[in-house]
């Protein structure tokens, strides 16, 4: 805001070499010639690295969240004998500036013998086994993952569901398609690394959502100890999942620094970020839904097909397991079965993107509208009819998720009021009489946040320094989530100090406790919860130290805004600086069981899943002459438990909603049938602007969770549920034309075709 923020590209180290990658121009082919001599000879070029130099450095390559034994695509730093997607790094130039590095790229002679690529979008969409060939010949199949996994003894079907589908009065069957759209942080990826062979130390500054993951991945890659690596982030200009794990290029940079024993810097440009930064979405979901005569859902069968590209991250990039867990959402759906298959293709690999599993909500919430209309029930009533109500809590869903504190019915009712659902039909009828096409769409969901494995144990460490001010360090990696603000607020509140006296340190492996970073909507619940418990611990310690000074019982003391007072005797006050001075230097009188110092830490153990809920509603207008859509109104009702900071909550929701607007109407990463990307700049990959978004209206239902502080997840939901709310609104607007509208994106051309009766 003042220009004093510091991002990775603002970090300047001496004697640093700038990287540019030579990337594959074809989707699949054999490298038959690669001549880098002219590039090597260019003034200002330090070295041009190819697979021959760099790939042998790899010791191991896996992400903490999936573990060393999980399946991975056959990863390599640089393409060796063949290329597998347009944008795959083949060679790496280190030069005195990015300008010179790009000059050198133009001098590299590359000859690739093209082979027919496996491009899911163009092979009778989502055909699994590419008869044209294998993306990864090493694997012998293009299947990256399957659920249920046939070799793990999981049930491969649900006979009771098949029975329901065979006998129910109504069965609906629809397949939904979600196109490829991307995280697109405004700051692209970037990393600086330098290896000092004499101290045996790797220093890294990266644009990352989690510095500890950068450290761990680097150590694994090079076979060095994690303690030899210091990774940190400066300000991070957005991530949305793309910066959760180290990318191939990030790995190349640390490997190059290690090999060359110098400082290496890669600041990705926008063209690279669109073509080669992790991709997202790109999936189909088929839903078969059975209902009884009254419209009560009796069962749902789901089949999910994901295109994970060539080198997805983490693991094989499939989100089917979480999609399976979350699909029942806020409804009692009766019998249930979920299957899924993820397939490799010769395209850029999938990464996490804000609600990576969100196809379950995109498909389900569209299906709710389609079924309701087919049954002649209002979509709002149909949702109410099937929704889990508070009196049924705790509720175990058909997928085994246990909800304890969710309020889907309350948020649905609130959003209906906020958007004036009742009044809208008259408005719609009046508009139609004027030839205007208005529509309303609802969508509801339960936002699940994973609290298992490495994601489920996060720490906040607190230290009161000699001057009485508080340093909080966490394993989070804020990249626009205001974690500095919210953690400080929780600490100030639970410890009993002024907010201004708390400073938060994060995303630095030397300064923060081990943590998995920021992602998965866990920040408030996990880091907030840990901050609260750590604050309470430290408060008790402060009171014990103060009790020595005041010759009082700690029980008789209170701590507020950084001053300890004797209850009922407010004149007796001990400022925090004095307590701190005692704790560190004036501890002679401490009893033997009172440890000097003022520090406390808490590592929270999160529930396996944490849940919040929300309902969104959109009113849109479709221009019958151009098919262009304007979002006229947008309302959100959210229950994320106790809100640490409502402005931050609403900021997270708004950002997610506008990413949904982008995804549904504007953003589409397009490959042609040869796997060549067509939307490689912001001229072609269209992000929504301020002129394309409505004013968002918020309602909050506050039902505390059972975790410390009563906080719930909120970061991803806006992006998960806005797409179906918007699509449903457009479908409603185009109902006179019989629109099914099951494939995104909803471009003006698609909608105009429907209006003019060219397609359905």
């Amino acid at each position, binding site marked *: *805001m003042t*220009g*004093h923020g510091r991002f990775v*590209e603002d970090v300047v180290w001496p004697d640093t070499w700038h990287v540019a990658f030579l990337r594959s121009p074809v989707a699949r082919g054999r490298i038959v010639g690669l001549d880098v001599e002219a590039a090597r000879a260019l003034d200002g070029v330090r070295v041009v690295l190819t697979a021959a130099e760099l790939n042998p450095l790899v010791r191991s390559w896996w992400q903490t969240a999936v573990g060393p034994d999980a399946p991975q695509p056959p990863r390599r730093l640089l393409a060796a004998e063949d290329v597998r997607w347009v944008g795959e790094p083949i060679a790496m130039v280190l030069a005195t500036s990015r*300008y010179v590095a790009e000059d050198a790229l133009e001098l590299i002679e590359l000859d690739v013998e093209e082979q027919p690529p496996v491009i899911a979008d163009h092979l009778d969409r989502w055909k699994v086994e590419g008869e044209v060939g294998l993306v990864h010949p090493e694997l012998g199949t293009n299947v990256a993952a399957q659920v249920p996994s046939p070799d793990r003894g999981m049930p491969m079907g649900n006979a009771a569901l098949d029975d329901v589908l065979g006998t129910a009065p109504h069965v609906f069957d629809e397949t939904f398609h979600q196109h490829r759209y991307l995280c697109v942080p*405004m700051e692209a990826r970037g990393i600086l690394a330098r290896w000092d062979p004499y101290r045996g130390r790797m220093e890294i500054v990266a644009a990352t959502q989690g510095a500890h993951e950068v450290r761990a991945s680097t150590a694994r890659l090079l076979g060095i100890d994690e303690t030899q690596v210091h990774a940190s982030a400066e300000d*991070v200009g957005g991530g949305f999942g793309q910066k959760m794990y180290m990318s191939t290029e990030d790995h190349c940079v640390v490997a190059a620094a290690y090999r060359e024993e110098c400082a290496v810097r890669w600041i990705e440009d926008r063209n690279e970020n669109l073509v080669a930064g992790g991709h997202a979405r790109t999936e189909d979901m088929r839903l078969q839904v059975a209902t009884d005569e009254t419209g009560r859902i009796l069962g749902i069968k789901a089949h999910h097909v994901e295109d994970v590209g060539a080198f997805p991250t983490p693991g094989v990039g499939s989100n089917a397991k979480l999609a399976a867990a979350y699909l029942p959402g806020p409804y009692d759906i009766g019998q249930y079965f979920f299957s899924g298959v993820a397939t490799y293709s010769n395209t850029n690999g999938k990464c996490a993107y804000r609600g990576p599993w969100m196809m379950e909500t995109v498909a389900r919430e569209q299906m709710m509208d389609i079924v309701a209309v087919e049954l002649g029930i209002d979509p709002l009533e149909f949702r109410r009819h099937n929704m889990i109500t508070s009196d049924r809590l705790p509720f175990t869903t058909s997928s085994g998720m246990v909800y304890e504190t969710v309020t889907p019915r309350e948020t649905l009712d609130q959003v209906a009021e906020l958007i004036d659902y009742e009044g809208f039909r008259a408005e719609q009828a009046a508009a139609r009489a004027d030839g205007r096409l208005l529509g309303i769409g609802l969508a509801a969901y339960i936002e699940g946040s994973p609290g298992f494995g490495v994601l489920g144990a996060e720490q906040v460490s607190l230290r009161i320094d000699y001057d009485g001010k508080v340093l909080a360090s966490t394993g989070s990696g804020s990249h626009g989530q205001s974690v500095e603000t919210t953690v400080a607020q929780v600490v100030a509140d639970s410890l009993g100090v002024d907010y201004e006296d708390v400073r938060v340190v994060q995303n630095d492996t030397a300064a923060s406790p081990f943590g998995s970073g920021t992602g998965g909507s866990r920040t408030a619940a996990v880091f907030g919860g840990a901050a609260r418990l750590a604050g309470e611990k430290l408060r008790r310690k402060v009171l014990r130290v103060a009790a020595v000074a005041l010759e009082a019982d700690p029980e008789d003391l209170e701590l507020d805004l950084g001053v300890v007072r004797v209850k009922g005797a407010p004149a007796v006050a001990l400022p925090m600086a004095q307590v701190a001075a005692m704790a560190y230097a004036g501890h002679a009188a401490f009893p033997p069981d009172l440890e000097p110092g003022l520090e406390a830490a808490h590592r929270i153990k999160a529930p396996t899943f944490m849940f919040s809920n929300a309902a969104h509603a959109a009113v849109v207008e479709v221009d019958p002459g151009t098919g262009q859509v304007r979002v006229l109104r947008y309302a959100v009702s959210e229950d994320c438990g106790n809100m640490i900071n409502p402005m931050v909550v609403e900021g997270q929701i708004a*950002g997610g909603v506008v990413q949904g607007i982008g995804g549904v109407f504007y953003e589409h990463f397009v490959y042609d049938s040869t796997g060549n990307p067509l939307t490689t700049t912001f001229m072609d990959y269209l992000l929504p602007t301020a*002129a394309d978004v409505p004013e968002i209206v918020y309602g909050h239902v506050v039902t505390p969770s059972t975790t410390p502080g009563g906080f719930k997840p909120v970061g991803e939901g806006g992006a998960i549920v806005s797409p179906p709310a918007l699509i449903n609104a457009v479908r409603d607007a185009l109902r006179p034309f019989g629109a099914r509208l099951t494939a995104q994106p909803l471009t003006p051309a698609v909608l105009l075709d429907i209006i003019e009766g060219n397609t359905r």
Partner: protein
Amino acid sequence: MNEHRIEIVVNGRKRTASVEPRKVLADVLREDCELTGTHLGCEHGVCGACTVLVDGDAVRSCLMFGVQADGAEVTTIEGVAPGGGELSDVQAAFRDCHGLQCGFCTPGFVITVRAFLAENPRPTDAEIRSALSGNLCRCTGYQGIIAAVRQVVRQRTGLPPGAEPPASDIRPPSVPVAP
């Protein structure tokens, strides 16, 4: 070496540099002037993150070469705040209204808003959205940014955005509006 000696007044201070003509103004500001507040979000003139004032006009510093700014006056985000930890009213409004999350696009927005309100002190809501449409933000959904502009309009004019002042309040613009 094909370098040109240039002199630019940046944020009121004279800066000289020897630059290759191909070096865009944003890189000259970031590297030669060491003012890294100007961010490059796309380098092809769409995202607006690199917006600076050149001789008072908001321009994209990725679409201008440093040599072209020789002799010009440039204002970057570092030159907006009055100093001493104080913020300009536009910056304060961004803070108050949660107009930034990751902060990467913010310098471009602040410069754009500053230039826009100097030219149009009483914009309508539609004019605000239009004026911001050349700057991309991925975090805020623009809600806080639009709110921030409205706040500045209210503070400066005492009126809500788009409102016409009462007739008695209209005075000839004898005092030029400071950029």
